[in-house]
């Protein structure tokens, strides 16, 4: 029975003609004398034939080629469109920062000048007062928050 277990493990490979020469003769010898392993082999043959007997699907010769041509063409079209948009993107990436930076800078300057004029204690007044100028005082004066 131990030998049967070993042979049964080899039967599938034997059926596919994938066993080493030594295993092939071992299996053949055993099959000559063992009805159980012979039956097992017959069942495996049936299982193999069951699957390999499957009807083959056949496509018309140009069916897939035509579908692929369409797909490749549409992909190429999309890629070209994308590259045009991307090209525009590069252009805009180069041009946009200049006006955007200018606008932002103007806004900051406008806010600062507004705050400066609104402040009751200007930089000039501070200089005339003779008080000590620390870093914090200077920053406050420039930003117009020091009163």
């Amino acid at each position: 029975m131990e030998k049967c277990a070993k042979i049964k493990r080899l039967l599938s490979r034997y059926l596919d003609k994938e066993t080493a020469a030594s295993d092939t003769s071992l299996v053949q010898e055993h099959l000559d004398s063992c009805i159980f392993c012979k039956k097992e082999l017959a069942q495996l043959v049936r299982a193999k034939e069951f699957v390999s007997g499957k009807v083959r699907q056949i496509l018309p010769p140009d069916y897939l080629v035509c579908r692929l041509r369409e797909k490749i063409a549409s992909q190429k079209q999309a890629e070209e469109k994308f590259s045009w948009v991307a090209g525009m993107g590069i252009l805009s990436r180069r041009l946009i920062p200049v006006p955007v930076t200018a606008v932002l800078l103007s806004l900051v300057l406008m806010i600062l000048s507004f705050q400066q004029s609104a402040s009751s204690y200007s930089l000039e007044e501070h200089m005339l007062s003779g008080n000590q100028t620390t870093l914090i005082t200077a920053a406050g004066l420039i930003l117009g928050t020091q009163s």
Partner: protein
Amino acid sequence: MDEDILYIEQFLGGEIRGFEMLVRKYQNRVLNIVYSLIGQDQESEDILQESFMKVYHNLKFFRRQSQFPTWLYRIVVNTAYDYMRRRKNFISDEGILEMSASAAKGPRDVLLTQEKEAMIQAALGNIPLKFRAAVVLKDIEGLSYAQISEILHCSIGTVESKIYRARQFLKNELFKLAGE
């Protein structure tokens, strides 16, 4: 020079015809593998198309360390696996019922063929996915264990084990069918 290599060279040289020749040559083999793996007509064609699109985009990376069909089948099996992971309902009962229903419309021999087909497909569908590809590549496509091991990225011993286990499942399915 190998015919496949000739077509590949043509394609890489800028002639789309080389790719189309490869498609014509392998489309039915690939379709049968995919159909045996997932068992759904329309989806099989979609996977077939997706696989060949991958070939189209990646043919320049084919290193010729393996044969072209081995490389192609690896793409096909992986594409089918991805699809099955996405869908998780590969051979549905509805699919099989649909096949039986369409069979009922045809003449008797067509009906028998289609019923048998549905039975085979159902039996294949009951084999766990991890074993199914090995037995399909062996029994449908007739590949060697060495080729299958390359396609499935595993050892020959593992291929043997997968085919053995798949056939054990098939044996049981056949017992069930015989009992009905």
